[in-house]
């Protein structure tokens, strides 16, 4: 139980957001410092809760509620741990007081990846009496090719963090083609809703005063509808707490020529439109994320983020960059040094009237080791790479909240929009190998766990360029004759509802107009 009362609860809908979340909490995990000489400047109690496990051991697990298909959890068991051994048949027989138990195995146990094999070896070694420094067994970096986000996790989750969508609700669904209305129906079914509500309540109950929520969601399929319903629920239960919604776009391409492809594109557009207009009503800030420069077109162009070489189509690699972005953007309200800064301050700083949508930009890693110029010069020299599609964030940033990691804050004048932390970003072991080694600033003298470290700069910006995103979305939608699409109408989406949200989006887009900004 933290005394500060600044807890944040993260809610994630869908595999890609869960992938981002896995990297995000890995980054937190890597940041834990057990060396009193190098205390972390992040207040970890914001994102983590203390507890005791069933066995009575101390646990420190993310304040997190994950939503995904049952089958997507892959290696992660309902206990929140990876690669759990099933209990012995004899124990089971005793527990259920039955002599005869027939074992049915639905699928073979997934194979461990390189990282998890080493973890298993390490814990084996640690069990031995004459164990040496066991950390040596683990490598600094593992470039994985995971089947699911769960394989990337370097920490355990709390069992109450997992909300799975029961298989009977999802059988026969093709996720990419599902509509927000389907998500809304799943949300309402008692077998899902009760569990989700219980899990959120559990996380809420273990907080002193929640400062807000991070809601990460896929916005192009049914999760759009679930996230909207979730936002409604949070608003209802928790009133005026800050909510930052992060809609995440799919990394896959559409086949533009095939009819199927066009249908799917249209589904994506409608879901996104509905999600955007609901998020706008219900959240305090909305920061759309994607590693792509453009969406809804032939052939993907991925942002190259200046110094990174990565495969954009890989959820594992793309999500790691988004996670790094989220880590940086969320730093200000987690700093130990600035106890009074909360999510609401960032919201107040960035929220211009009618303009809740903000673009996130990063310089990750930050290419220079020394800074001998002032902050304005710094921002001029190092332009952000944008995490928001269609928005380049190079100029015309009307307001921004800047985070700089790896430099002393005394070097810069105090400003309510500038947050400097002397700690480098410590890169977890399962983070993909996409950062060139020349940026690694880890110092063996300051060694407290062998990990890569980089410096980084980020800005959450309210830019008038956001207008492009809305114009493209609305333009593409209007180009379709959506009144004639039976797929949506039959799934109880009224054409009127879509027209409404289009108007909302028009309004949002208009408020980014230069003339609106005084």
């Amino acid at each position, binding site marked *: 139980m933290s005394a500060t009362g600044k807890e944040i609860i993260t809610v994630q809908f869908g595999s890609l957001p869960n992938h981002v979340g896995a990297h995000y909490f890995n980054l937190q995990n890597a940041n834990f410092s057990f060396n009193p000489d190098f205390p972390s400047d992040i207040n970890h109690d914001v994102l983590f809760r203390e507890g005791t496990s069933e066995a009575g051991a101390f646990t420190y697990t993310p304040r997190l509620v994950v939503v995904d298909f049952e089958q997507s959890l892959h290696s992660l068991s309902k206990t929140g741990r990876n690669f759990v051994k*099933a209990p012995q*048949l004899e124990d089971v027989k005793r527990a259920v007081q039955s002599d005869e138990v027939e074992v049915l195995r639905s699928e073979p146990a997934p194979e461990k990846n390189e990282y998890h094999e080493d973890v298993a070896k390490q814990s084996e070694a640690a069990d031995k009496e004459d164990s040496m420094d066991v950390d040596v067994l683990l490598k600094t970096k593992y470039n994985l090719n995971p089947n699911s986000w769960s394989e990337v996790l370097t920490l355990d989750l709390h069992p109450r963090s997992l909300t799975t969508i029961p298989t*009977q609700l999802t059988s026969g669904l093709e996720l990419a083609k599902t509509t927000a209305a389907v998500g809304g129906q799943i949300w309402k079914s008692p077998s899902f809703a009760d569990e989700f509500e219980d899990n959120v*309540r559990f996380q809420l109950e273990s907080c002193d005063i929640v400062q807000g929520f991070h809601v990460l969601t896929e916005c192009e399929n049914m999760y759009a509808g679930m996230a909207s319903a979730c936002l409604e629920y949070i608003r209802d239960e928790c009133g005026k707490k800050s909510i930052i919604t992060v809609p995440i776009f799919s990394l896959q391409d559409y086949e533009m020529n095939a009819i199927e492809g066009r249908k799917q594109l249209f589904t994506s557009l409608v879901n996104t439109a509905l999600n955007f207009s609901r998020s706008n009503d219900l959240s305090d800030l909305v920061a759309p994320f994607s590693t792509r420069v453009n969406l809804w077109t032939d052939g993907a162009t991925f942002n190259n983020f200046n110094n990174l070489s990565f495969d954009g189509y890989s959820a594992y690699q793309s999500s790691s960059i988004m996670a790094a972005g989220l880590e940086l953007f969320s730093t200000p309200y987690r700093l130990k040094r600035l106890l009074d800064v909360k999510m609401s301050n960032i919201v107040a700083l960035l929220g211009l009237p009618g303009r809740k949508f903000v673009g996130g930009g990063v310089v990750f890693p930050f290419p220079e080791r020394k800074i001998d110029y002032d902050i304005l010069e710094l921002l001029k020299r190092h332009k952000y790479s944008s995490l928001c599609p269609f928005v380049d964030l190079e100029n015309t940033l009307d307001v921004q909240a800047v985070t700089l990691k790896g430099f002393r804050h005394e070097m810069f004048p105090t400003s309510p929009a500038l947050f400097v932390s002397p700690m480098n970003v410590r890169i977890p072991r399962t983070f993909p190998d996409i950062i060139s080694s020349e940026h690694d600033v880890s110092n063996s003298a300051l060694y407290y766990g062998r990990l890569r470290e980089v410096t980084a700069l980020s800005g959450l910006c309210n830019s008038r360029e956001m207008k492009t995103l809305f114009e493209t979305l609305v333009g593409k939608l209007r180009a379709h004759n959506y009144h004639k699409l039976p797929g949506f109408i039959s799934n109880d989406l009224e054409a009127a509802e879509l027209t409404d949200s289009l108007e909302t989006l028009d309004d949002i887009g208009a408020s980014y107009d230069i003339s609106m900004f005084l």
Partner: protein
Amino acid sequence: MAAIGLLNPKAEYVRTAQALALNITAAKGLQDVMKSNLGPKGTMKMLVSGSGDIRITKDGNILLHDMQIQHPTASLIARACTAMDDVTGDGTTSMVLLIAELMKQADSYLSEGVHPRAITEGFKIARNMSLELLEKLKIPVTPTKEALLPVAKTSLRTKLAPKLADHLTDICVEAVLSIYNPAKPENDIDLHMVEIMTMQHKTESESRLVKGLVLDHGSRHPNMPKRVENAYILTCNVSLEYEKTEVNSGFFYNTADQRDKMAKAEREFIELRVKKIIELKKKVCNGTDKGFVVINQKGIDPISLDMLAREGIMALRRAKRRNMERLTLACGGVAMNTVDDLTESCLGYAGKVYEHVLGENKYTFVVDCAKPLSVTILINGPAQYAVKQIQDAIRDGLRSVKNAITDGAILPGAGATELALHQHLLKFLENPSSATEMGVKGRFRVGVKAFADALLIIPKILAINGGHDPQEAITELETESKLSGSSVIGFDINTGHPVNTIDNEIIDNYCVKRQYLSSSNIIASNLLLVDEVMRAGLSSLKQ
């Protein structure tokens, strides 16, 4: 060549005999998987997932959900059967068995050249007759404990080990009877008013019924009383948590000083709410030995908790939405949405409110209520999977008791109903007037015969699962039933001999039987009439 082949060369299809074979194989396959579940002697299944989670079950419904069925026909049957469970809470396994058996019986006639339509028409006649007979077979019950105990016992014994089942029988019946209110229209029983709370102990202790409410959280202040007796309960949905000011965009204040003032005003606003609650507490409790408990659906921040603790008030925050309704039913009082006009009449009452800590989980018991219309079943188990198994079984047990009350009637179990129907249908076919008077033309008779024979699958499988010889059992049953002329002769799984099911307290739900007879007939008929199966467009039936 099927027409679809012309339009879409990629389409896969099977026709007539092949299509039928496809459907029958699927149904048979499901039957093979499910048949070992039926009855109290069915085997327990342990489902192991790839990630090492296990689930213990004997419930056909859960198995069908968890088995990730790929075959399209099988998944159609599975979905129909699980829908059955959604409606009535039982009968999934029986339904799978009956559908498959109907198709098997039909198959032998089809291979002799009978048209499927003749068989399905026969099914329809047989079903209508069966449903008519059910009305005669059903035995009325009154909602008393003695009458309902056998119903719950039969249901639970098919899901759990006998010792455990017998223990829970009493709990299920008591629970439903406490929330049952005969005065209410349509005998409407809301099972949501029975809360099911689970606790996992390392050492096993017994599950029990709590006549009151158990909440899954506790007070979050070290100085709050952990135990209150003679307690007034205030149920409310009012935020007692300081939140940021409504307007944060900087228009309404110019200086930091002004902002602080606004924040302070907001704080005072919350404080005022807390003070109102304290005021009420003082009014009703001062000078008496009564305690005061606040249960709030919204949050309460540490400062407010502190104020309440100083007054000796126990406060719980973030109660489940549904518990707000349950609380007022269990303790009386009204759920308040504002603290403006609180009076004593808004308050509920409980004899004892206390906290119980188990590992990192806290539980709050609200018990000794005057006349609780909402109760809690507390499940204790040594491991998560054991708790889950009991939870599933209790849910079914509650449903069966509820069904018995709403039907106002029951049917004999242990295959007795099926046997009686079988005999009745055969008698009808033997009767020479059936062909003329009832209008059952010759070719439909095979359908009726097939239906009658298929019904025997239930006692047969019961016998097999009990380790007896099915043929022997069926013959004995038929003789006994003919000799005695009784319609309640069923199969005793322990002795392997016929037995009077009512005397032996083996009881089934009327609505379950009714539902499964009519639905299985429809599904089987539809599948029999299929003469072409094609797959086109969908790249894969998996998602």
